[in-house]
């Protein structure tokens, strides 16, 4: 088992009132799964994904990731954990504007303290695999949306994570570009990478092996 959420609650308090963002979430994810999270806007999909990705905290419950209990870990430890196992893909790509494609890909490796020569090889590999060798010296602003997202996915993959978290990865793309990304995910999944994506599109959700529906912070 890759990760397990038990009775997760998350809330914010405004005006003395607790507003629940997540309510009693129970979820088990096995290695190699491809899960789609769906639900209306504001239902808590992004929040849940961020909790899984350890970018956000929760208020109650237990979260075990690869037999480590995340809720009792220190921040530093936690960041080590996701640095090693998790890759993110965002709806608005979130590439670093000041860095070229190549340098963007290199970034996670630097944070993992991988040696320079090794880094170069890994980046070259990725550029090859995603067919963007020709773009390696361009800056994000010089790429189309689809190309940027491709770089985003490549960057998420480069450190060979066990789990990829994607928040509406195709939200800003046209349907053809979206399909390409989905095909890519499917292929990755077949190679053994676990994927959890948030999506509004039924069609994209079909790529996954399991669909989780959220409504008002609750799984339905």
């Amino acid at each position, binding site marked *: 088992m890759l990760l397990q959420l038990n009775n997760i609650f998350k809330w914010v308090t405004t005006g003395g009132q607790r507003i629940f963002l997540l309510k009693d979430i129970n979820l088990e994810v096995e290695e190699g799964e491809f899960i789609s999270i769906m639900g209306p806007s504001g239902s808590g999909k992004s929040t849940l994904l961020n909790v899984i990705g350890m970018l956000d905290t929760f208020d109650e419950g237990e979260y075990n990731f690869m037999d480590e209990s995340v809720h009792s870990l220190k921040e*530093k430890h936690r960041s080590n954990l996701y640095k090693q196992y998790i890759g*993110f893909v965002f709806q608005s790509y979130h590439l670093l504007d*000041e860095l070229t494609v190549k340098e963007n890909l290199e970034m*996670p490796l630097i944070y993992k303290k991988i040696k320079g020569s090794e880094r170069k090889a890994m980046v070259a590999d990725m550029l090859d695999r995603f067919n963007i060798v020709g773009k390696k010296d361009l800056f994000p602003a010089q790429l189309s949306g689809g190309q940027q997202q491709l770089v985003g996915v490549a960057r998420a993959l480069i450190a060979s994570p066990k789990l990829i978290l994607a928040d509406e990865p195709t939200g800003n793309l046209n349907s053809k570009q979206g399909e390409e990304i989905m095909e890519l995910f499917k292929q990755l999944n077949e190679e053994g990478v676990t994927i959890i994506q948030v999506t509004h599109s039924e069609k994209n959700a079909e790529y996954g092996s399991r669909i989780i529906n959220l409504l008002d912070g609750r799984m339905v």
Partner: protein
Amino acid sequence: MLINHLKIAWRSILKNKLFSFINVVGLSIGLCSALVIGAIIYFDFSFDTFHKDKDRIYRVTSLFKSGNDEFTNRGVPVPLMQTFKDGVSGVEEVAPFMSANFSKVENKSQEVILKNVNDGIFADEGYFQLFDYQWLAGNSQTALSEPAQVVLTKNTAAKYFPKKSPTDVIGSTLVYNDSINVKVSGVVADFEKNTDFKFTDFMSMSSAKMFGEKEIATSDQWNNTSSGDQLFFKVREGVDMAAIRSRLDALAKEHKNTAAWAADDERLFVLQSLPEIHFGGKSGDYPFNNSDHVASKTVLTSLSFVALFLLLLGCANFINLNSAQALTRAKEIGIRKTLGSSKKQVVRQFLGETFILTVLATLLSLLMAPFLLQQFSEFLPSGIDLSVLYSMQGILGIILLVTIVSILSGFYPAFVLSKFRPVAVLKGQFTKGDKGTRLRKTLTVFQFVVAQVFVIATMLVTKQLHFVMNKDMGIKTEAVAYVRLPWNDKSEVKKERLFSQMEKIKGLSKVSWGGNPPTSNNISSTILTYFKEENEMHQETEMLWGDITYLKTYGIPLLAGRERLNDSVKEYIVNERFAKALGFQDPAEVVGTFLKMDSTQIPVVGLMRDFNQRSLRSDIKPLALTGDWGNSNYSSFNAIHFDLGNNTDNWNETIEGVEQAWASVYPDQEIQVEFMDELVEGFYRRERSTVQLLKWATGLAILISCLGLMGLVVYTTERRVKEIGVRKVLGANLAQLNILLCKEFLILVAVAFAVAVPISWYLVQEWIESFAYKTELSWWVFLASGIGMAVIAMAVTGARTYKTANINPIESLRNE
């Protein structure tokens, strides 16, 4: 990792060119002022720090107390030197020496003649034991043991004996003052580091008699103190200084002046440690007779405050802009965190960027420093330069400064950013939250407070200076001048000849005999006794000597009584303040009374109007004018005062006439015509340099603050282009948008003004206290400076907001 950080840093600097430029320039101006002022301060603190055992070396000086007055003399009576040479317990080595001016030094064999050598001293071997010179020829034991021996410094030896090496010079003869043959017995290297010991000719002490100077061994002139007679000594290690001090007190008591008039006077011997000498002791004396510069600790302190504030301004600016700009990079930080960057790494990255900018600013400031130094050169001692900045210490100092500044200005944004939680950032919450605006506003207010204080202070100090330089002193200062007769030629015949020649010059409307001019820095005073209802009243009175036309020449009116009968009759004319001091309700009543000086009764025959005898820092004092009768040995009339008349066209011609007359009487002496208006201006030299410094500081402070403001405006408007676009679509016009954008900055400037007013009022108040005559600290000065600042701020913000308000909304909205 490091390279990656530097790369990103460099690119983001380039990406925000204007912003980075403002940032770097602001900081470099602050740094530059700090560096230049630092070099100036270092210069004064670097004097005579190289002497061996410098902490154990002291100089004895004299302090005289008479009534409420205190004055100091850097010398000691000569017999005290002998007392020390005979041995004082706790003292290890003694070095007495006497300043010497030689009118002529001649090397006959090479036909070299040098006139007016003023850097000589009479010294004995003690001098070279106490002060460690490097001997190039001869040795310290024997070089000064005999009469008619002289030790030269290398540079001087080269002057007297061109092209000869130090060893060749030994044994050669020099002729001093036309007739005294002296053998060169040693050559020492000149001190290379900053020093006040700029002596060049060390004549053996035993030669003093040949030069007509005092002899240490035989002199008993305990009450004769001349500033050139110096006594240095070195104490044994661990000695109790109190014991030496009390010994000096005892000596002073023992040899107190026994004359009746000195009964109430007191003389003390005061110790000055070697490092203190450059700072001139209590009354700001020059270190030695041949010194041309004395450092003032108050001036250095104010300078360091100016430097500190300009540096703080630069840093505040830097922090402000950096943190403002950093927030626009929150997104980048968020992404980095999701990619696995730790807090520490974020902090390091931002510190690194700040460091690059600081280094850039430092390089820029080093480039600008020589230009800034040049601006101050007018009132700086010669010999100051920036080489210290490139010395080992200087470089270490700069590195330290750069590190501190980077940390100060890099830490805040680094920490704010590293604390951002990536979710919050990626959700875009950071743009809504106004992180750090409070700090930024505080810093902006601080900048403007400093700038505003500088502006107000400059205006008020200038106003005071204008006031004292233009206030009517009560005498005529325009077109009046005097020449002082040579002190070393006392011939009465020559005097009279010059006077009568000057009387013949057509352009001179009045010519008078006199001593000092009515207003000057040299004032002598005496005690006059007045019998008031059988009680003796002693009145300290300042004295002026002048002939019967002296008052007319200086345009001082007689208010009552008459002019004296002739130039040498024993009669006084006193001023109103004197009459009041004696207790006359109506000053005119003083005319006809008698005053006693020593044992003579002298009538007061006239009352002159009050005028300022000194700079307007001091008040008017009781004063008496009299003729030339006091001393049969020498005349009190040692200057000729004259009025150049109203016709300015003839002035040059007239002055030439005076110069010719002088040249015909004193062909060997140089004439020095002193103009009264220049003399009065000279009273305020220090104030004028203060104004100059303040003007610079103000200019720089305003510049930095405006750069800071501009940076903030750029940042704010850029962040608000979208809002402005929306407002425009909704129908807002240009004026409304400008007001909207400028308002928040003008509020800050207003707050700064409110804070600056009391601070500057207090500071100027303190400064102006030292003047007896004060200008008013008028409210309009404050108001004007406030309005001026607001206008500048408005211009700076307006230029930018106007541009932003003009952007086509379609463009700004499409960006999202």
